[in-house]
């Protein structure tokens, strides 16, 4: 499949990169070798901190001051980029090699119109006048599938959706027909359905232009859908490189095997469907609505009507004892809003029945309720107080809800329960890794022996392999304690593995609640079907 006679468009040869730090040099990349031919997509897969983005910066020649390059070459169509001056690179970037970034909401300047940001590439590299560039820009936006290009050009970034913005970013990357484009996790910040559309657009444009593409991602399943070849990077080392099929069917390295095993596979269920749907559920949410925004002072005085934003629109669902109920939906669909209402962080209308008790408002959520209903948040960095030791963090719920005798031993037991060494009690959160921090957050939630734990996207900030181990831990705890989970996630493959039932939410409404194994049946609601179709499952095809 690779044409050996042709010189590769991009070739990285024996390239190493160091960062000078206070603790001596840090080897970010070690002897990297890879090449991409015209028309080819090379997937670069690795966990956070593996050096995949560092490699992108190296290729773009956009390195921080403390970077050092002990050796190697980076060739773009035969030109060694390491020997190019900054001025020469400025003429290369955007014209011969360009980049699509992870989050379109931060990679576009908030105070310049989309058209201005798109045309500046054309003006700079193709020497067009402002009017020509504007016209060309509209044509480009049309090409990336935006419906009203003329109007879109005039919009400011905050007036466009994430998907629309990412299309604009892609349009500017393709604007000058570059030889090579680096895609740095271009769909990670987008919704499931939007990211599917962006991915389709990328595949289409790539086939049309034949641009050599380096597709960086942490998601093996996603790379398998797009790339022809995959390189697996671990701690600055490329451990394995080969065609997608080879990597999936015959991985050589343990690390690659681990990565593949960690990818959630919906056909491989991790829980038994033994939860009875009872007449007396543990929690019953009855027509709970959440509205945001308060009346401005002036409007209240003048009696002017103000529109409130609806976060949840009359949601009714129930969780049975020991059940794992998954909630899926796009960002902004009201998943977390519901979780916050149930834990008393959002005001709500409607009723919540918990264990036979009626909760009508926040004031009904007393200590006993809070003891029984615990929440774990997405970012452990934000939910653990950075100035408290782990022991302090974990002893707080014990003092609040349990008996505070023999705290030291109990904290140690809790840490052991979540597979952390007892000695971690003396550490501060910043001394732990992301996965370890989330384990501490889990231990904290379980400290009060709750009946329901709400997990709000708790694995989405973690790497795939770490996610797998955290999920495993959660399932074990569930088995041991019989706690029910409300598991909020946007990862459909994961939730299909672990949930008993799945609730699908869309723009504040509950679309439906279905049994996990029936979610891909054709009788599902339109939106659910679209969601299921959008999720890349290619990994399964090779297994």
């Amino acid at each position: 499949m690779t044409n050996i006679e042709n010189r590769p468009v991009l070739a990285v040869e024996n390239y190493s990169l160091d960062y000078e730090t206070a603790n001596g040099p840090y080897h970010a990349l070690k002897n990297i070798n890879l090449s991409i031919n015209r028309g080819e997509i090379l997937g670069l897969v690795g966990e956070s901190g593996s050096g995949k983005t560092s490699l992108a910066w190296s290729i773009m020649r956009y390195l921080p001051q403390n970077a050092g390059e002990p050796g190697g070459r980076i060739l773009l169509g035969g030109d060694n980029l390491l020997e190019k001056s900054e001025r020469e690179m400025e003429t290369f970037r955007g014209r011969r090699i360009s980049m699509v970034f992870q989050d379109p909401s931060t990679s576009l300047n908030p105070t310049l119109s989309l058209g201005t940001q798109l045309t500046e590439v054309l003006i700079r590299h193709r020497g067009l006048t402002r009017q020509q560039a504007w016209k060309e820009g509209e044509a480009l936006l049309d090409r990336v599938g935006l419906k009203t290009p003329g109007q879109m050009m005039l919009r400011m970034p905050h007036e466009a959706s994430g998907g629309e913005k990412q299309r604009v970013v892609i349009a500017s990357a393709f604007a000058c027909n570059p030889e090579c484009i680096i895609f740095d996790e271009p769909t990670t910040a987008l919704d499931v359905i939007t990211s599917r559309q962006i991915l389709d657009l990328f595949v289409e444009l790539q086939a049309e232009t034949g641009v050599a593409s380096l597709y960086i991602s942490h998601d093996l399943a996603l790379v398998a859908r797009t790339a022809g070849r995959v390189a697996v990077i671990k701690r600055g080392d490329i451990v394995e490189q080969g065609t997608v099929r080879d990597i999936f069917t015959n991985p050589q390295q343990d690390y690659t095997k681990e990565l593949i095993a960690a990818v959630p596979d919906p056909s491989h269920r991790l829980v038994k469907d033994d939860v009875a749907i009872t007449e007396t559920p543990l929690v019953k949410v009855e027509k709970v609505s959440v509205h945001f925004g308060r009346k401005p002072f002036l409007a209240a005085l003048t009696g002017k009507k103000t529109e409130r934003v609806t976060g949840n629109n009359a949601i009714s669902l129930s969780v049975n004892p020991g059940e794992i109920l998954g909630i899926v939906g796009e960002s902004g669909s009201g998943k977390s809003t519901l979780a916050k209402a149930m834990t008393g962080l959002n005001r709500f209308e409607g009723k919540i029945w918990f264990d036979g008790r009626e909760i009508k408002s926040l004031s009904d959520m007393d200590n006993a309720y809070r003891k029984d209903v615990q929440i774990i948040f997405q970012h452990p960095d934000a939910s653990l107080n950075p100035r408290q030791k782990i022991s302090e963090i974990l002893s707080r719920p014990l003092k609040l809800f349990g008996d505070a005798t023999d705290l030291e031993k109990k904290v140690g037991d809790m840490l052991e329960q979540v597979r952390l060494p007892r000695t971690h009690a003396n550490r501060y959160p910043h001394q732990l890794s992301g996965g370890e921090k989330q384990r501490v957050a889990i231990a904290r939630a379980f400290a009060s022996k709750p009946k329901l734990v709400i997990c709000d996207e708790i694995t989405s900030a973690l790497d795939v392999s770490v996610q797998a181990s955290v999920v495993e831990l959660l399932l074990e705890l569930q088995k041991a304690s019989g706690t029910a989970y409300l598991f909020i996630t946007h990862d459909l493959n994961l939730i299909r593995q672990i949930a008993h039932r799945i609730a699908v939410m869309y723009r504040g409404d509950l679309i439906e609640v279905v049994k996990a194994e029936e979610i891909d049946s054709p009788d599902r609601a339109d939106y659910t079907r679209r969601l299921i179709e959008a999720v890349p499952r290619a990994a399964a095809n090779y297994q």
Partner: protein
Amino acid sequence: MIVYTLFIVSLIVFAITQILPADAAVMMLGENATQEALDALRQTMGLDAPIWQQYFSWLWHVVQGDLGTSLRTGQPVGPVMFEALGRSLLLAVLSIGLMLVLAIPLGIIAAVRRGKIADMLVSLVSYAGVALPEFVTATIAVLVFADWMKWLPPTGYVPLTENFTAGLAHLVLPVCVISVILIAHVSRMVRSELVDVLHTDYIRAARLKGIPRREVLRRHALRNALLPTITIVALDVGYLLGGVIVVEEIFAIPGIGRQLIVAIQARDLPAIQAGVLIMAATYSIVNFIADILYAWLDKRIQYD
């Protein structure tokens, strides 16, 4: 919103002057006046009415543009205060102008050359500027430029309409003294904002589109970095109003600050009320304009 603010300010101003240990009637008639004379005067001045009535009658006159009559001179205070305000505003506008011309480039240089010698020099100078109060810088400035060098007149005020060059010469020292602190403050602000902006993803994205550094700075970074500066400058007007009082006193400029000091010394209640109200109104209006300007420049912000 600004109407509410001004209303509340008028309440506070009135309340403060009520608390002041001064009786207008005693002030006018002197310590030895008879009780009958005092009572009669209080009645004609409406000082025997309940406080809220006094307040609303005062407010009603203020709304109509009548700020009251000075107890000291017997003249209406409004025209005097507004004339003084005009002189103070001239001083303030010139100071802000000088500040903007110097502070923004200094902040930009410091941010772009972060950690280099230029950055440290700017930091040093701005620390010195923040640390020295205006009466110290003013005294030093008068000593050096007026007393030793004899380049500029030490104190006094000449209207620009009367003698332009002399008027300008009298303004140079006060303007410089006021701007020093502003420059220190604003250049540090510009620097830190710009440093933040230069680390954003969209700046990196622009650079990786092949846009040269200088142009990225001009088109992408500066606008976003300077936006918060508008708010800071508007807030600094508050400092300016206070600082102006000191500087006007030192340089003997008959601005609103000086008028206010005279009024306070003479326990001239209507004049104090008028002066404070005018200053508060100026501050509110400036900040109101700044908010509108900000919303106009940053399209993401919308006010209902």
